[in-house]
C-alpha cells in the first residue's frame, strides 16, 4: 500500500474525457514523476488530489483516508501541499509574509483568532520562515513585494511556502518552468536534499527531462488521460511506447 492510492478515477469536462481509469500508487518516501504531453491531464490529476476537482468515479486515499469530499484546506491539513503550475502566492504581501502565513497555518490550524498577538514577536516562526527562504536562496529578497518577483522566483517562493509546512506529500506542478538553468539545478539539489533530510514523498510533474531523470525514482507516463506505463527511469528511457507517445514527440 502506498501513501497515496488513486483507484479508477475518471473525470470528464463536458465531452472531454480528461482522466480515464487512472490508477496510481505512490510509495511512501519516494519521488514519483508524472510526465506526458501537453493536455495529457497531469494538472487535472493534481487538482483531484488536492480537492480542487471532484472526480466522476473512483477513489483517492491518502494514508488510508479518503480525500474526496474534503475541502482544500482540510486536505492540506492532512499533510498535502502543492506548488501550482502558475504560481499561487500572496502578491500584495512581502516575501517574508508569504512564508509566514503557512507557518501560522501549520501552528494554528484552519482558524484561530489571534487578533491581540503581534507578528513581529513570533521569533520562532520568523526563524522558520527565514530558514525556508535561505533554503530556496531568496533570503535577500525577504522585503520585496511578491508580485514584483520574476516567474522563477515566484515559483521558488511558492516552494518555500510549501516546504515550511513540512508536508508528508508534496505535489509539484512543473516546479522549474520559467527558471534559469542555474536555479533549475539549485532546485534539483534542494529537492534532493530535502528528500534526504525529511521523510517526504514527492510527486513531480515536469517537462524538463533533466529534472525528471535527476530526481525521480519512479515515473508514470500519462497520455490522453490514461497512464501508459509506470517504471524506473532506466526502463522508461528505453520504452518504445514512451518514445512514441512523449519523448519522441518532444525531442
Amino acid at each position, binding site marked *: 500500500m502506498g501513501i497515496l492510492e488513486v483507484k479508477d478515477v475518471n473525470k470528464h469536462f463536458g465531452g472531454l474525457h480528461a482522466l480515464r481509469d487512472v490508477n496510481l500508487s505512490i510509495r511512501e518516501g519516494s519521488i514519483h514523476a508524472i510526465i506526458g504531453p501537453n493536455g495529457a491531464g497531469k494538472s487535472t490529476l493534481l487538482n483531484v488530489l488536492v480537492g480542487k476537482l471532484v472526480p466522476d468515479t473512483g477513489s483517492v486515499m491518502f494514508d488510508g483516508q479518503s480525500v474526496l469530499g474534503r475541502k482544500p*484546506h482540510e486536505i492540506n491539513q492532512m499533510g498535502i501541499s502543492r506548488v501550482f503550475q502558475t504560481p*499561487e502566492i500572496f502578491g500584495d504581501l512581502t516575501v517574508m509574509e508569504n512564508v509566514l502565513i503557512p507557518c501560522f497555518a501549520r501552528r494554528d490550524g484552519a482558524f484561530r483568532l489571534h487578533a*491581540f498577538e503581534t507578528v513581529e514577536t513570533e521569533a520562532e516562526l520568523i526563524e522558520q520562515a527565514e530558514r525556508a527562504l535561505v533554503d530556496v536562496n531568496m533570503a535577500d529578497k525577504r522585503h520585496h513585494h511578491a508580485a514584483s518577483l520574476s516567474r522563477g522566483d515566484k515559483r521558488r517562493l511558492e516552494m518555500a511556502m510549501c516546504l515550511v509546512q513540512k508536508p508528508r506529500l508534496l505535489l509539484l506542478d512543473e516546479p522549474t518552468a520559467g527558471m534559469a538553468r542555474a536555479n533549475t539545478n539549485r532546485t534539483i539539489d534542494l529537492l534532493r536534499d530535502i528528500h534526504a533530510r525529511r521523510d517526504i514523498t514527492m510527486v513531480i510533474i515536469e517537462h524538463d527531462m533533466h529534472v525528471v531523470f535527476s530526481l525521480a525514482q519512479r515515473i508514470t507516463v500519462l497520455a490522453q488521460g490514461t497512464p501508459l506505463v509506470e517504471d524506473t527511469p532506466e526502463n522508461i528511457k528505453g520504452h518504445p511506447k514512451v518514445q512514441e507517445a512523449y519523448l519522441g514527440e518532444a525531442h
Partner: protein
Amino acid sequence: MLGLNKRDTRFLLIVIALTMLTPFILQPFPEGSALAQFNAGYPDLMQRIAIFGIFAIGFNILFGLTGYLSFGHAAFLGVGSYAVVWMYKLLDYNVLPGLALAIVTSGLFALAIGYLSLRRSGIYFSILTLAFAQMSFNLAYSVLTPITNGETGLQVYTSDPQILLGENEPNIPHLFGLVMSDSYKLNLGGWVFTFNIGYYFTAVIAILVFYLSLRIFRSPFGLMLRAVKSNQTRLNYTGVNPRPYTLAAFVISGMYAGLAGGLLAAMDPLAGAERMQWTESGAVVIMTILGGAGTLMGPVLGAGFIKYLEKIFSKINENVLDGWFSFLPDPLREVVVWIFSRFTGEGWALTLGLMFMLVVIFLPGGLMEGGERIRNLIRRRKNGSGDDASPGRTPAE
C-alpha cells in the same frame, strides 16, 4: 509599549496628541475674522468627526484588510443607536449600559448578516449586504415599529420606566453625571476654544478603538485578513479556511459601527431608521476610500474631510460668496458667484464627488497616498532617495 514597537508607539502618541488637541487644531482663525467660518472646532462637528472616524476605522478592518466591500454597514449603525435609546428608556440617561448593549447587539446582528452574505464574494457579497441593510431599514419602518417607533423615531418619553433614574440625575445623556453636552469655553486673545465633554468622551473611545485596530493590523489575524484579500486560493491550499477570518472581520467591523451608532445617540438621544439607509452605508465606503483603504489613518482622515465639507462648506451660500467677491465689478461678480455656488453651499456634494473621482483616478491609495507622495518628494529633494514606508501604511500598497 502596550505591545507595540517603537514606531507604532510613536505613531499612537501622535494620534492621541492630535485627538486631544482637536479643539485647537480645528479652530485656527480668530473669532470675527473673515476666515472664522472655516473654523470647525464646534462640539457637534468634532464629535461627529470622531464618531464617523470610529465607523470608518471599523469598516476598514473589513474592507481595507480583506477587500470585502460591504454596502450595508449602516444597518449596524442604526442598531447601535436603537440600543442606546432603549437603555435610556429602560434604565436612565447614563450612556455606558447603552453603548455596551449597542456593541453586543450589533455584533450579533453582524454575525447573522455576515454568516449569510459571506457565502458569496465580490459584487454578490456587496449586493447581499446592501439587501440585508435595506431590509432592516424597511422593517424598522414597518413591522418593527414597536421597537423602533417607526417614522417618529425612537425617543425617551416621561412615561418610560427609567428604573435607575435618580433624584438629581440629569435628564439628558451623561456619563455618571458628566453631561455630554456640557462645554467649557476658553477665550484666548481673539480665539474661542470649546472643550466639550461629549467630544472628549468620544475621543477617548476613538483612541481606544484605534489602538485596537492598530493591534489587529499588526497581528497574525490581520496578516491572514490581508492574505484573504491577496489570494484566497493560496490560502485555501495552505490549510486555512478563509470564511471564519472574514466573518470575524465582519463582526468586528459591525461592532465598531454599532458603537458609532450608539455614540450618535449619546450626542443626541434619538434614533431613527434613516440612519440605516444605504446613503449612510455609501458614506462610510467613500470615507474609507477617500482617506485610503487599508491604511490606519486614512479612514479617520476621510471621515473628517467629509464631515467638514458637509458642515462647513455647505454654509458658504451665495450671500457669503457675494461678500467675498464684492471687489469685483457687478456682472463679473455675479458670474463668479454663480460658478462658485455650484460647488459650495448646497453644492458641497458636487465638490466631494469631484474630489472622490480625482482621488480614485490619480491616488488609488487615497489621501494617505497623496501625503506619502509629497513626503517622498520632499525627502528625495533633501537626500538621495527615500524608501521607508510611513507608519500609517502596511507594507501592502
